């Protein structure tokens, strides 16, 4: 009770201090550091740049500053030698608790102020994709939770050591550990959560849940340590141990501390988000499991029920197999490590099964013993939170009413050791989704609605052929576009509709597909009649397979579409990103050498120029593309390091790489298109170049090295590197 009476007094005193207001002011300004100096979220989405980075930077600044303020405030009475008097009037334990609560209240006030002041800035910078829920969660979890942790850590240090300078050093070391050594460990980086991307067009609950889990773990741990340090608060003229012995006489106090520490350990160990896959990616032991002898596949089906509010999945799967061996067989499945498997039956009877502790490539091994009967139907149920493998790139298993992506073993258990039957691996899959979500199987299969319940939830069904399968579902807008002799089904997030309409996405898709199909040929992964273009949640890149291609949302943000290096206008940058379906996915390029100009960008920028020339005329294309490349290249050749490479070689490797990377943009986006343009003139004009590019696009691929190289390009043009020299 005394603590509660002291709290308003302590808070009032705290808020009268100029230092408190200075700390609050600097914390409120902290998010600005995320816009210019400290950018841990590396993805190019608007929310990563203008929400995640400022919020994390604000948390780092606020956590450290409030920690220092806590040390200053706790040391105040001792510094002015008033502690003897105040301790005589009020128990030092009560004072310490009241000070902690007052500091926490000031932190809450600061976070609220920061969120309020930065709201118009974030809304203005992120534009059409601004989302209030993401904003609040970002400032609450990415920034806000860092402040109490800083206060608790600093208070612990002071209460143990009772020295302000030593506590400051301990806080600095603790913060430095989080910012450096622990920065890649999502559970340890208490100050700067491990967030690499926030989606603009879809939800981010998975990322926020993971950050909340980390914050909870640390909150419990630091609360436990703080309680222990609180027991060490000096009283009756005793030292740390003497005070501890006296304070611990009331047994519930150390018990609370130990319970908090135990809870923290339990929460740390029981994290549900990341699996324990073998970090050695060269090991693929699940693919080396021998096929079950004389067992072949007949068919399979699965009914999947995602719980979009909890982010979990429940499912039933059924597999029909022919067992011609006349004996029991052990069948292996890959299953997402977050799922619990139950009710495994064969022809209606329970059969033994086991799930391995060993995991690789985001799968655990489920082994089921099937009886010696000719036709066996194995059924099973599974449920849980789908786990992911890469802790530094979380968010891939986002599952909400706006978006989900269930890949292979996360959709339903994946058969590993059964040979295909006469029809391969026929599968019939169903998923029940909220009314606003559209199911999009990745591939040529088309999902159809087969039923709808009273709540509006719809069950989608599609047929597939394979042991795995990938399903995207989300609040998508679908545009059907006739182009290049096929139907393009273009799916993009509803939140992105304004941006897509502004850039004329449908017209751009039509122009690109028509042009590229006519000049270079059909995409190898198109199914012939249809091609699905699916915008995915930010994933670090796209991929393509039979009848479908994935577009990473990060390529279509307003910031990227405004990049004049890729196109003169946002609509032209959109064209650029689509051309990557031909140069980048349809024809792959090896990882670009930072020092060299050859990459997928050269041919993509050149093709964009050709399409723009066809759409808007030669004068426009020359002014906005060729002249711009020439200016950039002229500037590049005057660069000091280009003229004096010997100075570049003097620099440490990291600096060399950084400078090469800063120059590589010009080489890839301007120099190489200019070289291709020169090649076009040397080989006899646009028509001749188109024929060359057609032959390169449709060349026979070497499966060991399927990448298009500069040497192949030069050889197809019958030119040498020197002939394309621009200097």
């Amino acid at each position, binding site marked *: 009770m005394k603590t509660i009476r002291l709290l308003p007094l302590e808070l009032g005193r705290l808020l009268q201090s100029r230092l408190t207001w200075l700390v609050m002011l600097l914390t409120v300004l902290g998010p600005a550091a995320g816009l210019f*100096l400290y950018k841990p979220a590396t993805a190019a989405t608007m929310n990563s740049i203008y929400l995640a980075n400022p919020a994390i930077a604000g948390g780092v600044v606020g956590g450290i500053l409030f920690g220092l303020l806590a040390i200053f405030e706790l040391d105040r009475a001792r510094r002015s030698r008033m502690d003897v008097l105040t301790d005589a009037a009020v128990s030092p334990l009560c004072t310490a608790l009241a000070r902690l609560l007052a500091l926490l209240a000031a932190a809450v006030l600061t976070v609220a102020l920061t969120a309020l002041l930065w709201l118009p800035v974030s809304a203005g910078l992120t534009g059409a994709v601004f989302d209030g829920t993401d904003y609040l969660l970002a400032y609450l979890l990415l920034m806000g939770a860092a402040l109490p942790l800083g206060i608790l850590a600093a208070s612990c240090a002071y209460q143990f050591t009772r020295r302000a300078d030593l506590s400051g050093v301990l806080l600095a070391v603790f913060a430095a550990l989080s910012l450096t050594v622990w920065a890649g460990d999502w559970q340890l980086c208490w100050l700067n959560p491990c967030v690499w991307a926030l989606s603009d067009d879809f939800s981010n609950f998975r990322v926020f849940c993971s950050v909340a889990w980390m914050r909870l773990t640390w909150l419990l741990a630091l609360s436990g340590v703080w309680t222990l340090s609180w027991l060490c608060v000096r009283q009756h003229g005793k030292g740390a141990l003497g005070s501890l012995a006296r304070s611990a006489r009331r047994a519930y106090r150390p018990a609370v501390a130990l319970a908090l520490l135990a809870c923290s350990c339990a929460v740390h160990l029981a994290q549900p988000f990341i699996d324990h896959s073998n970090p050695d990616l060269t090991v693929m032991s699940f693919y080396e499991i021998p096929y079950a002898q004389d067992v072949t596949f007949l068919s399979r089906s699965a009914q999947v029920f995602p719980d979009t509010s909890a982010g979990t999945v429940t499912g039933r799967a059924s597999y029909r197999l022919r067992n011609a061996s006349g004996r029991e067989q052990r069948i292996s499945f890959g299953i997402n490590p977050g799922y619990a498997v139950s009710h495994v039956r064969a022809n209606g009877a329970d059969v033994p099964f086991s799930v391995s502790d060993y995991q690789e490539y985001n799968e655990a091994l489920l082994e089921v013993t099937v009886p010696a009967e000719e036709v066996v139907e194995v059924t099973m149920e599974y449920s849980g939170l789908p786990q992911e493998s890469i802790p530094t790139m979380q968010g891939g298993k986002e599952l909400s009413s706006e978006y989900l992506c269930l890949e292979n073993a996360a959709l339903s258990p994946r058969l590993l050791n059964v040979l295909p039957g006469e029809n391969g691996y026929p599968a019939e899959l169903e998923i029940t989704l909220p009314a606003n979500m559209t199911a999009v199987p990745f591939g040529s299969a088309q999902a159809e609605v087969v039923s709808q319940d009273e709540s509006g939830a719809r069950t989608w069904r599609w047929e597939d052929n394979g042991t795995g399968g990938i399903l995207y579902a989300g609040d998508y807008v679908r545009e059907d576009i006739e182009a290049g002799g096929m139907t393009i089904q273009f799916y993009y997030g509803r939140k992105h509709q304004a941006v897509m309409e502004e850039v004329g996405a449908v017209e751009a898709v039509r122009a690109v597909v028509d042009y590229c199909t006519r000049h270079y040929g059909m995409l190898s992964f198109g199914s012939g009649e249809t091609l699905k273009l699916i915008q995915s949640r930010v994933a670090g890149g796209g991929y393509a397979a039979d009848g479908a291609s994935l577009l990473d949302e990060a390529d279509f943000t307003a910031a990227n579409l405004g990049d004049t290096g890729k196109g003169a206008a946002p609509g032209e940058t959109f064209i650029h990103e689509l051309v990557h379906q031909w140069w980048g996915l349809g024809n792959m390029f090896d990882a670009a050498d930072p020092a060299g100009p050859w990459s997928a960008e050269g041919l993509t920028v050149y093709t964009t120029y050709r399409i723009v020339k066809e759409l808007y005329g030669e004068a426009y294309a020359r002014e906005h593309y060729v002249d711009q490349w020439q200016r950039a290249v002229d*500037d590049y050749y*005057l*660069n*000091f*390091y280009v*003229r*004096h490479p010997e*100075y570049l070689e*003097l*620099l*440490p490797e990291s*600096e060399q790489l950084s*400078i090469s990377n*800063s120059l590589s943009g010009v080489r890839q986006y301007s120099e190489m298109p200019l070289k291709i343009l020169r090649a076009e003139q040397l080989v006899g004009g646009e028509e001749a170049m188109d024929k060359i590019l057609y032959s390169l696009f449709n060349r026979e691929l070497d499966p060991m090295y399927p990448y298009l190289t500069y040497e192949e390009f030069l050889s197809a043009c019958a030119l040498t590197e020197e002939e394309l020299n621009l200097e």
Partner: protein
Amino acid sequence: MSKIYRYECRRLLWNKFFVGLAAVLLLYGALVLHGATILGVAHTAPFSPWSFGDYLSRMLPLLWIGTLFLLTFFTSGRARRAAVLTDATPMPPRTYALARCAAALTGGLLLTLLCTGEAAVFYGRMFGWYGWGSLALPALATLLPPLIFAMGSGWLLGQLRPWLLYVWMAAPLLLAALPLPEALGLWNGSFFTTYPLSLGTLDPGFTLPVPVIAAQLLLLGLGAVLLMKTSKPAGRLR
């Protein structure tokens, strides 16, 4: 006087605040050198007078703020209360004020030396380049006028109202955001990135056009005149 000067120097420079300021300055300097200066400006070498001038221009706001912070030692409420006692001493007020001003100037110079020293170490370590003599002119032209002006104007403002010093600290940040005419290009650093390109040669030697020289001399003169006013002891202007 030298005793008072030494005492004031010790008071200003031998404390946690100055050490912290120097640490922040060095840290920011390292960021600028590794992030921007290393690339060179206007197609010149990172160690050219132009790139070095650009580095100093980027450091100038912090040096300005640091110099004004040093002045707050003499203009704060606490210092004004102590002035009742110091004014009663037999020391001539002009001499006392000059000694304090010299101490603040020494602090500002030390911070400047730290900045330039850091750049020199950077050039030596990264490029094995030690031709520091060629950097003296851009350093003098870029730093001396604004720092003398900061000292003079800061002293004047601090005597009027102590909080005005804190407002005045934002001046270089404001200048950086304003589209200044070419003659004032040294005040926001745009001079070093644009002027060499207009000379039409690669790696031009360091020169200053007449309007820029005039602007810097004006700033220096104004700063010196304001400094002369420091002969009036704190509190007398009110």
